């Protein structure tokens, strides 16, 4: 079975500062990793995904994430955030043997001017 841990429930940051949202996973099988963003009153939008190959993946809106197998992590980063990045960010995992996504508890990114 897979599980996901997002240690930070809230991350406050000033505009144009860099940010890292942490995600750790556990799994007994090979995993696929995803980051989704949820803006207020909206659904979940895919930011980026790691399936295989290069451990650094780039997504939409300037976000990127790095898969680290030894540390079982998939942290999300952005070098310079905007006010519009204020949202809830969810890390999710699926495995080759299951069709479902397992989500973390989410991290609320609050960007201040």
């Amino acid at each position: 079975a897979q599980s996901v841990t997002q240690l930070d429930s809230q991350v406050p940051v000033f505009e144009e500062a860099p940010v890292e949202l942490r995600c750790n996973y556990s799994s007994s099988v090979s995993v696929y990793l995803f980051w989704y963003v949820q803006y207020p009153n909206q659904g979940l939008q895919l930011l980026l995904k790691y399936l295989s190959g290069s451990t650094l993946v780039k997504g939409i809106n300037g976000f990127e994430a790095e898969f680290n197998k030894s540390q079982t992590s998939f942290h999300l980063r952005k070098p310079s955030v905007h006010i519009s990045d204020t949202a809830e960010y969810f890390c999710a995992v699926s495995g080759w043997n299951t069709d479902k996504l397992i989500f973390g508890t989410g991290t609320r990114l609050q960007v201040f001017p």
Partner: protein
Amino acid sequence: EPEVTQTPSHQVTQMGQEVILRCVPISNHLYFYWYRQILGQKVEFLVSFYNNEISEKSEIFDDQFSVERPDGSNFTLKIRSTKLEDSAMYFCASRARQGSNQPQHFGDGTRLSIL
């Protein structure tokens, strides 16, 4: 860009009543899902559906729940006799191709409030 659409956006129902949540997946998608998010908690998988049958379901998805694809476009979640603890945001998702490495596309959700 094609979207998953869900109706209604907010549903208020008396406890014990039946409720049907509706979803229109992206048109060429073949795999369909329901998730829920209780306020302040994580998004939880409920059920996956392919080729007109359930392919996987969670412990949450008990006999009170059912899913159906009544025509070529809609995908519904029915809760037979709602309980207070069914209050949550329900998300529908769809996926184009086989393989758990393919991304799921989510709708904006239906907020279900049980009184």
